[in-house]
């Protein structure tokens, strides 16, 4: 039997593959500028490579509302070196939005002098959505046309019901449950669920519809492991709709529950909110699901994404307000305790010491002098404690000298080296106060928890926003979902219309990056 050596994948092969593949292939530099744009990219977007090469992707193909999320993904990939599969939209020359599922990987490039570039490959999901099916409704036999038109009308009614619910400011739970019900109705199945990905390979059921009633094995609030053997797990990994033909031999909690409910197969599709893979809808059936289910569920999910985004935004806002109120209450309680146990106690002691000195004045002048000396020391300490508390409320240096000097004073009091770079110009009062609070809190966290030797604070005014970054060389691994520290910082940024993100890969330090708008301040 003759043996042949495996085909060697050289540069020429890579070139041919890039230009002949139906997949979108592009290469970006660290700033998001396009370095390569293959034929498929040209076909899908209508832009030529001459137009886009060397230009930031956000100026051409990334829609404005997803530009920020795109930047976050780039920052994540460059800072961690990890791939980050995404689903997002591309704008075409004629203003259409195409839904693209992306995978990506960093690669060292000789053309770029040995620096890394980001290779991305994508599939145009819009090409498999019912756009084609809509056209088919106007071709073929009248029966099929009628069925297709009826189906589209049913989808429209379902969407209208969800939209009405969102407009009535229903609770997120009701909206998610309605989305689940409508998916089941449109896809004609008995059970469906809306899952929210939790950022750790798990997903929580936030909306559920099932005809099984109390006997249902999947309940609201259940947090399930989104493994590769599950539909939602595959959606999480690929950003595209996924099908499990048969759960008979599959391991895991989801498969166990599916068997218990006598569901044989499932189809899941992604819900993408502002360019980020937010969650998935899964439908289940005792019978094999029709061949076009992925496309239909995928298209429906794309349409309900806006409803989910609105509901999620409202839930986030409510939670954020509650956290801000709670944080304010806690701050006031802490302040009251600090005043009582610190300065007030010293002043009580001082009052007694002065009485003692007065009593000793005639009989023991030396003792009286000593008591007065003690009283003066006690008074100094009380004053220092009051100054410290006042600084915590709103430092005078911030009001009088601005962010740079105020943050430099914070840095000086910390037990680690901190470099602070801040604009000399004065900014709106509430933006300065918010930035001061966030940076001081982030630096305090670095000093307390990060095991870092140094930190860097860099604030710049870019256009109509204040951007800043706090980085450290500590152990990383900060979990935004644990405790209220990072959430509290994000709440503060969002309260003035800004954004805040934390990137903290284990062993690689932590980056807190925020942007606060100056125009609405």
């Amino acid at each position: 039997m003759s043996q042949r050596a495996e085909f060697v994948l050289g540069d020429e092969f890579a070139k041919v593959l890039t230009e002949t593949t139906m997949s979108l292939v592009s290469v970006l530099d660290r700033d998001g500028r396009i370095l390569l744009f293959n034929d498929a990219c040209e076909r899908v977007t209508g832009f030529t490579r001459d137009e886009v090469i060397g230009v930031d992707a956000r100026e051409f193909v990334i829609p404005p509302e997803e530009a920020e999320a795109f930047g976050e993904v780039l920052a994540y990939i460059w800072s961690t070196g990890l791939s980050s599969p995404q689903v997002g939209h591309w704008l075409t020359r004629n203003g259409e939005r195409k839904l693209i599922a992306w995978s990506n990987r960093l690669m060292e490039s000789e053309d770029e002098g040995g620096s890394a570039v980001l290779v991305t490959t994508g599939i145009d999901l819009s090409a498999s959505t019912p756009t084609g099916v809509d056209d088919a409704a106007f071709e073929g036999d009248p029966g099929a046309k009628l069925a297709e038109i009826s189906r589209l009308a049913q989808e429209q009614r379902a969407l209208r019901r969800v939209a009405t619910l969102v407009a009535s400011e229903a609770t997120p739970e009701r909206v998610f449950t309605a989305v689940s019900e409508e998916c089941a109705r449109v896809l004609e199945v008995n059970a469906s669920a809306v899952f929210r990905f939790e950022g750790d390979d798990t997903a929580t059921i936030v909306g559920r519809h099932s005809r099984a009633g109390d006997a249902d094995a999947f309940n609201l609030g259940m947090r399930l492991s989104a493994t590769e053997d599950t539909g939602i797990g595959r959606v999480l990994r690929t950003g595209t709709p996924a099908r499990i033909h048969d759960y008979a031999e599959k391991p895991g909690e989801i498969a166990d529950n599916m068997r218990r409910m006598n569901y044989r197969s499932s189809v899941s599709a992604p819900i993408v909110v502002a360019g980020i893979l937010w969650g998935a809808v899964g439908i289940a059936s005792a019978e094999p699901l029709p061949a076009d289910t992925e496309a239909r569920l995928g298209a429906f999910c794309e349409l309900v994404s806006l409803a989910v985004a609105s509901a999620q935004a409202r839930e986030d806002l409510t939670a954020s307000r509650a956290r801000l109120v709670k944080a304010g209450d806690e701050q006031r309680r802490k302040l009251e305790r600090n005043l009582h146990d610190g300065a007030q106690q010293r002043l009580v002691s001082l009052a007694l010491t002065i009485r003692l000195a007065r009593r000793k004045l005639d009989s023991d002048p030396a003792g009286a002098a000593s008591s007065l000396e003690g009283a003066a020391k006690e008074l100094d300490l009380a004053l220092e404690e009051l100054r410290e508390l006042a600084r915590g409320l709103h430092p005078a240096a911030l009001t009088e000298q601005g962010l740079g000097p105020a943050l430099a004073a914070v840095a000086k009091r910390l037990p680690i080296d901190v470099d602070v770079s801040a604009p000399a110009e004065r900014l709106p009062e509430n933006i300065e106060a918010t930035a001061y609070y966030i940076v001081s809190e982030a630096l305090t966290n670095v000093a307390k928890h990060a095991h870092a030797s140094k930190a860097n604070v860099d604030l710049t005014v870019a256009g109509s926003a204040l951007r800043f970054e706090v980085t450290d060389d500590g152990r990383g691994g900060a979990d935004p979902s644990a405790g209220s520290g990072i959430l509290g910082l994000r709440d503060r940024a969002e309260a003035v219309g800004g954004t805040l993100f934390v990137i903290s890969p284990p062993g690689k330090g932590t980056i807190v990056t925020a942007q606060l708008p100056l125009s609405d301040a």
Partner: protein
Amino acid sequence: MFARLHALRTTQEQHDLGLEIVRDQLLPWLRDSSGFRGLIRLWDSAEAKTLVITLWADEESLRASAAAGNQLGELTAETVGTTRLALEDYEVSLFDVTAG
């Protein structure tokens, strides 16, 4: 409930001065202390002895107030010109007081 007992040797004059300090300076501060539940001051004129008992909700608040209790108690004794006979902590085993 827990209690801290301060015992002092006091003349009439010292008792009156101590009472004024406790009422005007210590008590307003004590009332805002975590877990503070009340204060009882007892005087035995025949024995020239004053007892001050502060009451605390739990062992934690008793412990948290120990340093301040010791420092302010000693300072008060010195200010009224007397010495402290004892400073002791107790657990309250029965508490039945009718107001008024």
